[in-house]
């Protein structure tokens, strides 16, 4: 076979480096099985030089977190003229900044839990800590979720059950990012919907239901086998299931995502939906949600990877015409 050369970007400086390396390794294996020439690349100061000398036909972005999911690498690759997998610059920037994405959700009638976003500067220079008593007026009563405004893998996430734990949770979140988001904690089933987007338009994969034994889908629950139960498709009745899928497509479309995205939401006991976020570089590890959902419709990891790479290559072909 004489297929194209694909650079797989992974690792990098992000706190999710290890997760990304696992995703990347699996993507490389899949691409090799598919007959592509594979160039695994860790993000490093020589990246651009390597890309210019190796001239890959496309980049597969297996990066997670900062620099990979925040639009930085996407913008760089566009400048270099290398097509890449996954959503573009604007979608990446919007989805990565959770409070910004939530603003858009709210403006476009996509239900999302009430929230407050406070920057480190607001605390350090403007005395925001003296207004923490007002938080519940915006979010509703405890429990609340406190998380970094921009971060993946639920790093820095705390569930806060009472006002006296709020400051501590904010300080934790602020170690991971320069802004912390306080969000209403919605009880219900946590559901992740992966969306594939190609010539036939965005299509939802079966929603995956996430049931962490600790009650909080934090980093440990995410990457420790046995800490979380997953159900595919989610245990929802048909009407709710259809709403969930529609909602995921609406989010994907609103943020102008392409190729793939994963929309995370909570379904409450009344069947109400609450969108938490949209991920533009879903994990591809052994315990990741996108491969799990794809598996449920008979798509292997190689099928998923092939689909994404083909889209990227098609974009390059389109541009050359």
């Amino acid at each position, binding site marked *: 076979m004489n297929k194209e050369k694909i650079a797989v970007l992974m690792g990098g400086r992000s706190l999710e480096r290890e997760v990304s390396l696992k995703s990347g*390794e699996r993507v490389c294996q899949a691409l090799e099985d598919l007959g592509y020439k594979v160039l695994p690349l860790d993000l490093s100061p020589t990246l651009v030089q390597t890309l210019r000398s190796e001239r890959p036909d496309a980049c597969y972005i297996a990066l997670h977190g900062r620099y990979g999911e925040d639009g930085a690498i996407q913008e760089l690759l566009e400048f270099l003229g290398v097509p890449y997998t996954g959503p573009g610059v604007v979608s990446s920037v919007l989805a990565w900044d959770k409070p910004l994405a939530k603003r858009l959700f709210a403006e476009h009638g996509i239900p999302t839990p009430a929230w407050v976003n406070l920057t480190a500067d607001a605390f350090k220079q403007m005395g925001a800590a003296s207004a923490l008593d007002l938080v519940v007026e915006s979010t509703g009563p405890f429990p609340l979720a406190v998380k970094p405004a921009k971060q993946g893998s639920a790093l820095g996430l705390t569930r806060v059950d009472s006002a006296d734990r*709020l400051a501590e949770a904010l300080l934790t979140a602020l170690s991971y990012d320069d802004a912390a988001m306080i969000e209403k904690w919605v009880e219900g089933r946590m559901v992740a919907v992966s969306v594939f987007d190609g010539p036939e338009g965005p299509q939802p994969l079966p929603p995956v239901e996430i049931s962490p034994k600790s009650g909080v889908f934090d980093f440990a629950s995410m990457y420790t086998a046995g800490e979380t139960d997953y159900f595919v498709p989610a245990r929802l009745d048909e009407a709710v299931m259809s709403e969930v899928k529609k909602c995921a497509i609406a989010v994907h479309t609103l943020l102008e995502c392409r190729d793939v995205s994963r929309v995370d939401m909570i379904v409450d006991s009344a069947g109400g939906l609450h969108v938490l976020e949209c991920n533009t570089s879903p994990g591809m590890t052994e315990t990741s949600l996108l491969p799990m959902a794809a598996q449920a419709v008979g798509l292997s990891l190689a099928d998923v990877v092939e689909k994404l790479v083909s889209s990227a290559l098609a974009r390059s072909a389109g541009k050359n015409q």
Partner: protein
Amino acid sequence: MLLYRLTFRVNEGLIIRTKDVREEGIISPATSTPRPIGGRGLFVSYIGVRAMGTSRVVFDKLQGRYARRMDEMRSSAVRDLFAAASRPDVISLSGGMPEVSRVPAHTAADAAYKAVAHQGARALQYGGSEGSIELRSIIIELMAETGVRLKTDDIVVTAGAQQALDLLGKIFLDPGDVVIAEGPTYLGALQAFSAYEPEIRCVPMDDCGMRMDLLEAELRALGPRGAKFIYTIPNFQNPGGVTLAADRRRRLLELSREYDIPIIEDDPYGRLRFEGGHIKPLRALDPEVIYLGTFSKIFAPGLRLGWVVAPHPVLAKLLIAKQAADLCGSAFAQTTAEVYFRGTRWRKVVQALTRVYAERRDAMLAALSEHFPKEARWTCPEGGFFVWVELPAFLDTGVMLAEAVERGVTFVPGDSFFPDGRGRNCMRLAFCYAEPERIEEGIRRLAEVLEDRLELYRAFMAAGALPAEEGAA
């Protein structure tokens, strides 16, 4: 209804077993389509449970069947942060790794070669569980230099001192037994002991090591034989960096006798002294003391060679446990070490290493004085690998780690060295592995993180969102 249980190996996409079980629910045909996907030998099963077409995804088909002691062992965000720190631009002040590059590679290679070429029959064969006579005679000489007189049968060679910790836990500890240790103490000891589910009580230290007044109070509360043993690292303690003073060593032995509680003396760093006079090990003053030594810091940790010195009845039990664990230590490693210690100028190497570590300690202490905020306090080790830093009580170093990694420096958060969540305002800094300039830069970066955190905490305290700063160290 039916439950289809499909178990297949992900990387082979192979169905090992398909079994119908009576249950409610059914998997949709699509779910059961097996396809090869990448991965490494992880077993995944899809188990159908109620609702149309829904299946439960199980990544570990043995989940729920592991021993209770594994419950506490989970993947942690801290571990992942350290993975992020494997980037070359990150300065690691976290790992306690010896500078093995200073052990001349050709000498080590020569020792390994000679071990096989000249003594292959022994190096490649099983050996005695207690370790080779030759290596134990080398240990006798090493120990004699520190003031401990031994005979061959006083010693058992182990796979690093770490194995000795595990074996001692195995032979002494039942669930709920009390162990006394310094607080903070060696993380690896906490891990080794905790598998046997003891209650670990920590006695605080000051610049002269474990506080004997507080130990006595603890012992008085527990009563005679109230603990299974007292675990101590008297020289350049990990992570504290402090050394147990000579008068306290005598007091510790008195208390051990008075309350009839044995002492485990862990001494990995004793030979790495930068200044000050040698202080005799506890074992030199009392033959009842169980002493742990290691070749990791005077040769190489890759050999996994350590030793236990203990009263004969203890060694007898330990040998039974060791035989169950690994029959015998690596004869190849032991033979290699014999050749190395008999046939090379290894003392010169240890002296050179000690100078390297001393220089790095100086770099770290100077950088701490220059860059760290005035609220911070730290220990000044006379040897070993580590400095222990204490910050104002309101700071949580575990929470700082993410920010530190972002800025390109790592440390180990203090609570890792306590069994009970204490030490959150502390950190361990290792000076053993980074070059002096890198240490200086690392401390500078860490100081930036600290200033940033202090500013943030103060803003919270000023607003009354956190209790005021009374707990500052």
